């Protein structure tokens, strides 16, 4: 049976159109707000939701997502809380893939087996653990495999051919290409550099390739849509939540709809 992620990318290929992956931090600023925001992302046209698991030391994140993590932790969010949130989301939406994105320590603290089992039961489809390269992931991979969770790995402009091969061999679901040398929400990238790297990647894998970091506007999303299978937007959405802490859903939906429209036209 195809997974939600496979199903989603298969649908996109049929259209054809680049997918829209939207990131928000779980529990920012409250679990209830996140739940409403997740449904709003889907209503706006998101194809896949990435849910950030807040961590006290988000080394790979820029200030926007750092602040979101701090707000979520201040509100009591935890890895268990994130899983409960996904379960709750699944009572209304059993189709949209949900990928968790975070750091290793909370997962390691819960235990790889226990986490993988609980995440799969909650309806999580895959996990991107930012500070876990495949070299350190053998035990983690085993647990993920056992419970049918996809291991999303990122590739960067600094990844050479050897690393690209190693990563796509370990990856499942899709591959996350980090467009810039930097943290989330940072500078923008050169589309030609991204195109070049992704064509090298295509030669190594049939997995869908998403591109993130620095995608702030519908224009950038449209430009990217011709070179990849999915465009990943995070900080721009988290910024909307920061501006409208108690009622971001409508603003999120509107912005996501504008991104989605840009992708539809970009593919034409």
């Amino acid at each position: 049976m195809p997974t939600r992620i496979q199903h989603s990318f298969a649908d996109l290929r049929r259209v054809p159109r680049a997918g829209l992956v939207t990131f928000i931090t779980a529990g920012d600023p409250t679990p209830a707000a996140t739940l409403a925001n997740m449904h709003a992302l889907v209503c706006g046209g998101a194809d896949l939701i990435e849910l950030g698991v807040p961590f006290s030391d988000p080394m790979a994140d820029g200030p926007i997502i750092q602040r979101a993590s701090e707000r979520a932790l201040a509100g009591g969010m935890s890895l268990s809380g994130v899983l409960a949130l996904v379960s709750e989301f699944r009572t209304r939406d059993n189709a949209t893939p949900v990928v968790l994105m975070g750091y290793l320590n909370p997962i390691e603290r819960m235990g790889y087996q226990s986490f993988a089992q609980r995440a799969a039961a909650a309806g999580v489809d895959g996990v991107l653990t930012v500070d876990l390269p495949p070299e350190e992931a053998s035990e983690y991979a085993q647990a993920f495999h056992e419970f049918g969770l996809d291991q999303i790995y990122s590739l960067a402009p600094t990844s050479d051919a050897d690393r690209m091969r190693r990563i796509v061999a370990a990856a499942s679901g899709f591959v996350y290409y980090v467009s810039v040398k930097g943290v989330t929400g940072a500078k923008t990238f050169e589309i030609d550099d991204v195109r070049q790297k992704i064509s090298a990647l295509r030669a190594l894998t049939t997995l869908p390739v998403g591109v993130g970091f620095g995608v702030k506007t519908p224009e950038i999303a449209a430009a990217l849509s011709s070179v990849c299978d999915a465009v990943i937007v995070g900080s721009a959405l988290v910024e909307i939540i920061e501006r409208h802490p108690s009622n971001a859903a409508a603003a999120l939906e509107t912005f996501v709809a504008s991104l989605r429209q840009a992708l539809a036209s970009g593919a034409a």
Partner: protein
Amino acid sequence: MNTSPLPDERGHFGPYGGKFVAETLMGPLAELEAAYHRYLRAPEFIAELDHDLQHYVGRPSPLYFARRWSNQLNGARIYLKREDLNHTGAHKINNTVGQALLARRMGKRRVIAETGAGQHGVATATVAARFGMQCRVYMGASDIQRQSLNVFRMKLLGAEVIPVTSGSKTLKDALNEAMRDWVSNVDDTFYIIGTVAGPHPYPAMVRDFQAIIGRETRAQCLAQVGRLPDSVVACVGGGSNAIGIFHPFINDPSVQLIGVEAGGDGIATGRHSAPLSAGSPGVLHGNRTYLMHDADGQIIETHSISAGLDYPGVGPEHAWLKDAQRAQYVSVTDEEALAAFRSITVTEGIIPALESSHALAYAAKLAPTLSSDHVMVVNLSGRGDKDIPTVAARDGISL
């Protein structure tokens, strides 16, 4: 036990260490590792490093018999390894000289560093000034307040000091911010990590640059006492001065190795910085090691009077030495460290750093239980000038 082949080729000390970083840094870490392996075996690199350690840093640092203090404690004979006499006043410069030479050979013109007490920041700013490199130091906003003297020193040396206001505003947050800078500027920037933590190869590389402390201590003790010491005591935050003095003794089973963590208000209060004494294994800042974290894996705030020990993790080799029972880890409180600070100051005329005062405090507890045959070496890792405002403030005196 022979630990010299550690870490393994992937940077592991048993289950600890490794490379837990975002993909963007895997390439630059491999490049650093290649340079480190190449140059640490290159005679001309070693010759330049030795020359700088002698003529710029002022090595070897003395091994000094603290006669009056030993007599007062009425037990073990205590020798102090005087890293406080190094240029810039602490052991940190041993490592920054080494990494700066490496950075030059790798063609990096910009260096960055994190700092807690400011000693590593000063040591980095110093070598950057000497080599004409651009330098930026990240420092927690609350550390900037308690270490204002070192902040000004770094600025005088031409470094840019960036206050870090995220998280707990201390050393761990400065490290996060330095990592973010590195990931954003990997092409021209060399990240000079100040302790034996971080992703491989940093724990091994910083240890190798700091091991000069232990090599000298070994030779000096043989020359002055006629045998190896019975115990070696050092403070442990990230653990660079401790690994530096421990490492050359690891294969000498007769030498007891004791690391002293910052007990803050006391381990029982939860307000401390002692992951080896009261934490558990986890992953932070690129390596697996003992951490202070809650049941959800969130890193918890640490407390210590000493900014340089105020860190929730510890170098992975210490985690390994603890599990292998080759080294013993204990803690002393802020109050005990302050008492040792005052005691050594008035009996030996040496004002130690508050970090080093933790090692001295444990030595002062242990020495009276031992006979006068026992030779104990304490690593006096830094001088205390920077801490005088903190100590004065405890007495209600504002300088």
